[in-house]
Structure formats: structure tokens, C-alpha cells
């Protein structure tokens, strides 16, 4: 069909649909102001206390409160357990499916359908980040959505995969979603709780992929705010913990919703994929 016929036909769609789209796509384009600064060490303790008190006052009770929290269940993958994602292949122009049957470790989550996006600033790193990695956004004030020391091209050695910092959200794991470790074998898993974070520390080994023997994960779950920050890489757990302790984290007004995710499975192994 001729382009101008299509163009003219599309042009005549109802005003209400145009207005609806304008409202959604052009609402407060500059509204990225922070809603609340979260201090890792102290502030969220008060938030949880206030939230719990509010629930008690309202007579809802702590059980109802717990339902909306972001909870993690972590376990070894079952034999032949299958995980898959669908993605749009830019080359073929078709939907493709990737299937994995060899996950080593699985984390599944319960949590709210929506939560606020978070950003962070790092105040200590063991090595300079790779600022050119464009998968992550950094605003003019230095607030980031992710960070890595990984270099995307050329020779890769262990020093270049020292750390990844990524943020995931509860809504992302709706509909049987999961966070997987595929290539690293977890050797030691410990749980911890610090201020408002449930911490999972995973010490793992890899089969010498690109000369890397160790692959570690320091996973921080904020159950009340609905997000999880994953620090991973070849750095040891103590180094990852040091980075985590020096992160300044804030919630933004941007709402993350489960409806924006077509895939609900993510992979944590740095340097792969």
C-alpha cells in the first residue's frame, strides 16, 4: 500500500487517542526530580517503622503490610529447569526466543506491581568505571542507573571485570520472573541484614572464563521500596561490600511498572551476554 495512503489513514485517528498519547508521552518531560533521598545506613529504618506504625494504627496489621513487601526466595536450580526470554531481533525483524536449561542458581521474588526507580552515586570504587558503556544512564549531577568497570571491546582481563552495579525492581519479576546465575558456580552463600536491606552474599567460581576464576555477588534487597541492587564481579565480597557501603541511593519520582517488562528473567553473570 502507498505510503501516503497509510499516512493519510493514520492521520485521521480520533482526537481522544492523540490526546491520550500526548498526555502519556509528554507529561512533565523534565520531571526527574528526586522524590526522596534514601540514606542507606539510617533513614529507611524510620520509614519502615513509620509504615508499620501506620498499618497498626489503621488496623490493617502487619500481615497485610508484609504482602506488599518485596521478598526474595533463593535456591539452586532444579535439574532441567527451563528459563526463557523472548526478544525482538533487530536483524531478522522477528521475535526470537532464548532458552536456558543450565542455570546454577535461581532467585525469585514477590513484590508490588509498581515501585519508584532509584539512582545512586558511588563514593568509593576499586577501579575507574567505564563511562563509555552506554547501557547505563548518568545525569548531569552524577546520579546513575548502573555502573561497570567492564570494557566492551579489545582484550579483557580480570581487572576489567572488577565490578558491576545494577538495579532491578520488584515489578520486573512478576509473571514467574527470576534472577539467574548461569555460568558461575556458587560455593558459599550467606545472608545478612543491614539497616533496611536484606543482603545475600554469593561467593562463586567460574571455569576460567577470560581468565576469571572468581565471580562474586553482593545483592541488596530493599523490601519496602521494591528494588534490588546487585554488585557483582571478580572483586572479592569484602570489596563489593565496601562499594555498597559507600553508595548514596535515592528514589526518584519515576514509576516502574510490571507492564513495561516483556521479559521477566535476568542474568547476573558479568562479562557474558
Amino acid at each position: 500500500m502507498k505510503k501516503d495512503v497509510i499516512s493519510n489513514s493514520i492521520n485521521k485517528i480520533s482526537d481522544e487517542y492523540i490526546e491520550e498519547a500526548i498526555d502519556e508521552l509528554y507529561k512533565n518531560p523534565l520531571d526527574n526530580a528526586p522524590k526522596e533521598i534514601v540514606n542507606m545506613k539510617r533513614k529507611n529504618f524510620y520509614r519502615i517503622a513509620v509504615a508499620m506504625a501506620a498499618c497498626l494504627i489503621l488496623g490493617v496489621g502487619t500481615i497485610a503490610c508484609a504482602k506488599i513487601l518485596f521478598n526474595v526466595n533463593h535456591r539452586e536450580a532444579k535439574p532441567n529447569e527451563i528459563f526463557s526470554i523472548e526478544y525482538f531481533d533487530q536483524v531478522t525483524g522477528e521475535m526470537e526466543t532464548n532458552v536456558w536449561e543450565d542455570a546454577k542458581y535461581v532467585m525469585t521474588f514477590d513484590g508490588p506491581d509498581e515501585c519508584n526507580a532509584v539512582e545512586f552515586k558511588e563514593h568509593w570504587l576499586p577501579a575507574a568505571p567505564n563511562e563509555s558503556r552506554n547501557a547505563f544512564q548518568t545525569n548531569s549531577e552524577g546520579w546513575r542507573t548502573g555502573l561497570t568497570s567492564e570494557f566492551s571491546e579489545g582484550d579483557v582481563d580480570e581487572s576489567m571485570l572488577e565490578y558491576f552495579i545494577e538495579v532491578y525492581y520488584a515489578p520486573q519479576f512478576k509473571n514467574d520472573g527470576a534472577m539467574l546465575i548461569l555460568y558461575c558456580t556458587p560455593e558459599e552463600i550467606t545472608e545478612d541484614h543491614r539497616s533496611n536491606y536484606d543482603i545475600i552474599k554469593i561467593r562463586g567460581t567460574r571455569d576460567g572464563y577470560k581468565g576469571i576464576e572468581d565471580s562474586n555477588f553482593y545483592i541488596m534487597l530493599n523490601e519496602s521500596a521494591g528494588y534490588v541492587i546487585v554488585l557483582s564481579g571478580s572483586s572479592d565480597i569484602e570489596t563489593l561490600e565496601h562499594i555498597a557501603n559507600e553508595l548514596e541511593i535515592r528514589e526518584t519520582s519515576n514509576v516502574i511498572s510490571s507492564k513495561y517488562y516483556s521479559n521477566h528473567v535476568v542474568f547476573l553473570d558479568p562479562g557474558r551476554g
Partner: protein
Amino acid sequence: MDNSKIIDMFFERSEQAIVELSQQYGNQAKAIANNVLNNIDDAEECVNDALLSLWNSIPPMRPNHLQAYLIKVTKNIALNRLDYNTSKKRNSHYDIALDELQDCIPSRENIESKIIEQELSKAIDDFLGTLPKDDRVIFVGRYWMGESVLEIANKLHCSQNIIAVKLFRIRKRLKHYLKKERLL
């Protein structure tokens, strides 16, 4: 300011109506004209032309969706300008003369095209009514506003892949719908 108040100002022939309308929706209209023309100066001129057009048409017209009306008029002006800018025929005086005649003696092909356009337009509108709001916003953003996949992804705070996947599925559904309506 409320849209109905702006329209009232148009009816009172107060030039403040233009100022209010421009302040409220001018940037959105400019962005969409710029999507068509890829030239911000031309886009700005289109918005000014559209504001003048609204000044001339209100009254007697009283649009139900003032924002959409302004943006629609702006986009049409932008499309005409794009057509004008890119049309090689415009180099010939004779072709310009023929264009004038074409308005009153449409070819058979043009008549068929118009009929197809009308049917297709209604079918697309009906199809949009069957979509969930989120999908409809993405479709209108991409194919009516001319936003890029990246721009839509940024505005909806999700990845490009998600938008690309959704658009792929919507196009598939549209094709199926048009086949069912015997338009394909």
C-alpha cells in the same frame, strides 16, 4: 488554564487565547512538527501557522479536544510543508498548474485511494479501540507522532527492546485485524 476558557477567549476574539494556547501546548506541537520535518525552525513556523489557522476557525468551530486539534493542525501543516519541500514536481510551472487542476479533476486512482483511505482510517481507529491503553499510546506515539523507539522508551521509562517487541506485536495484530476486515 482550562481548555474551555481558552476557547471562550477565542470566541471573545481575545489575542490572549493564542498566547495561552501556545504556552500550554506549543512545545508539544513543535516537537511533533519537528518529528515530521526534522528542522526546528520550520517546525516553529508550522506551529505559528497552526495558531493562525485556529484563530481563523474558532469560532465558529468549538473543538472538543483543543490540544489534539492544535497538534493535528500543526502536523498537517508540517506534512504539507514536507511534501512541498521534497516534491520535485514543484520545479516545473506546468506541474504546478496541473496540481491546481488535480484538485477539481481527481484521477480514478485518487478516488480509489480516497475510498481506501476512508475505510482504512476507520478500521485503524476501531482497531485502536480494541487495544489496551499502554499499547495504544505506543502505537500513536510511533506512527502518528513519529517518535523514535528510543524516545518512546525513554518517555515511558523502559527499554527500547520492550517498545520494539510491543510494536511488533501490535503490527501483527493490526495486520490480522485488517485481514479480518477484508482490507488486506
